[in-house]
């Protein structure tokens, strides 16, 4: 079988750092933080009162008012992100190609906000007062479903729900679809919007969220730092258009990068904690290298999962050292969650956008707030601001509850 080559021919971002790709990237490269006090609900009684919210999002800029009312925020992000993506890619979905265009997105939790609103209504007014839109609004696959309705994409329409690895698994699945010739292009990446009372209370109960820096929100997300105390919840969308190389070249598309490898694995160990050896994470990375036919020494840059939780950062460091050996200290490792917070199911989407742009722009984003590195986190985390450097291969990692791991490898496109 003749495998297709797969390239990234479009990018979009709707993040705590900005409501479009350029603003997000410029703020990232400048080392700005998108973390601020929670405004989406009254969080005064919560231990963690900060988040990476998408600020001043106007869904009506992307869809009619009536449609905004029947969509949870995560689906609104998906439609807005997809519209910006197709514009960025200058990609037209027409009756002639619609069946060859898929939408495969990662969503970690789905319509938590909708569940909360209608559960309250159920308790207050009884079962007869539940909107017929409740179920279609809350189900996670309504994100790609709405994207298809708005764009006309009639190919495979799927979500991957693997917690914080959701988007990266979606990108891996999208890569497979094109590589196998089942789709010509796929709108992929991830979306999430779970900065809600239940969402924040639930992650707080897991001791997963940062609680020490409510008064200094921009200091709270500090991957690999000795003083890190948990992740900061974020929301948004990070989407990529993956396309067969031949299709992208035929239409003269801007190619940001090529995707050359994807690996996935499971720790088979614990519901929420990574296996302390890092062996499961390393296996996902190794599998990605193998599918790309690359030696570990080829990787110049890693956009790490780097959540700012105690366990993740030390374990991911261990996994990288285990796999890359003496090459590990030479890899530029970015923890962009230090600026965006943790976008959960959308994280791998946003970070894949950053990985592709890092190769395309020749700029490695830095890691902020790394003031006192944890002695067990002793690699090069690009802690003195972003660096101009032309890398050939970038790896993006995502790890999720359930012990699920994913890794994708991007190659610089030289045209």
């Amino acid at each position, binding site marked *: 079988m003749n495998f297709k080559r797969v390239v990234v021919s479009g990018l979009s971002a709707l993040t705590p750092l900005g409501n479009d790709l350029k603003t997000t990237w410029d703020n990232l490269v400048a080392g700005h933080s998108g973390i601020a006090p929670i405004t989406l609900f009254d969080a005064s009684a919560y231990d963690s009162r900060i988040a990476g919210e998408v600020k001043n999002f106007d869904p009506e800029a992307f869809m009619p008012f009536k449609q905004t009312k029947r969509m949870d925020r995560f689906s609104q992000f998906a439609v807005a992100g997809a519209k910006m993506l197709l514009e960025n890619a200058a990609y037209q979905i027409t009756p002639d190609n619609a069946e060859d265009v898929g939408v495969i997105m990662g969503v970690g939790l789905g319509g938590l906000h909708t569940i909360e609103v209608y559960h309250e209504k159920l308790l207050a007014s009884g079962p007869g007062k539940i*909107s017929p*839109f409740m179920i279609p609004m809350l189900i996670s696959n309504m994100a790609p479903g709405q994207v298809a309705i708005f764009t006309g994409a009639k190919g495979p329409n799927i979500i991957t729900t693997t917690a914080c690895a959701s988007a990266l698994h979606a990108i891996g699945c999208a890569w497979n679809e094109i590589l196998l010739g089942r789709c010509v292009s796929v709108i992929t990446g991830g979306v999430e919007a779970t900065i809600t009372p239940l969402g924040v209370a639930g992650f707080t109960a897991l001791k997963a969220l940062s609680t020490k820096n409510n008064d200094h929100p921009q200091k709270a997300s500090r991957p690999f730092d000795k003083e890190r105390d948990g992740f900061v919840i974020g929301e948004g969308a990070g989407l990529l258009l993956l396309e067969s190389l031949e299709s992208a070249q035929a239409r003269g598309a801007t190619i940001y990068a090529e995707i050359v490898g994807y690996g996935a694995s499971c720790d088979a160990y614990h519901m929420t904690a990574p296996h302390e050896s890092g062996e499961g994470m390393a296996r996902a990375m190794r599998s990605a290298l193998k599918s790309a036919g690359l030696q570990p020494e080829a990787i110049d840059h890693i956009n790490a999962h780097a959540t700012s939780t105690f366990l993740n950062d030390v374990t991911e460091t261990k996994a990288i050292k285990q796999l890359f050996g003496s090459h590990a200290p030479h890899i530029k490792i970015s923890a962009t969650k230090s600026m965006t917070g943790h976008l959960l199911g959308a994280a791998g989407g946003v970070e894949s956008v950053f990985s592709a742009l890092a190769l395309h722009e020749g700029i490695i984003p830095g890691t902020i707030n790394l003031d006192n590195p944890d002695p067990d986190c002793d690699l090069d985390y690009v802690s003195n601001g972003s660096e101009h450097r032309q890398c050939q291969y970038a790896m993006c990692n995502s790890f999720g509850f359930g012990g699920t791991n994913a890794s994708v490898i991007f190659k610089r496109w030289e045209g």
Partner: protein
Amino acid sequence: MSDVAAKVTKIIVDQLGVNAEDVKPEASFVEDLGADSLDLTELVMAMEEEFDIEIADGDAQKMLKVQDAIDYIKNR
């Protein structure tokens, strides 16, 4: 415009996202105001809440135009 008609118009504007001037008595919910089956269900629920009444499914199915809804509510 009667009080009922004004309230019904407001519900329709809010639920369907249409302009008040398009909510004419003879306007059809589906053909003129763009409602789908889910919109109709929610519209009926909003009217039940506003006027504190129960509208049976059979009655709801007969409300095809704006005037049908106004007449139904006035006769309750």
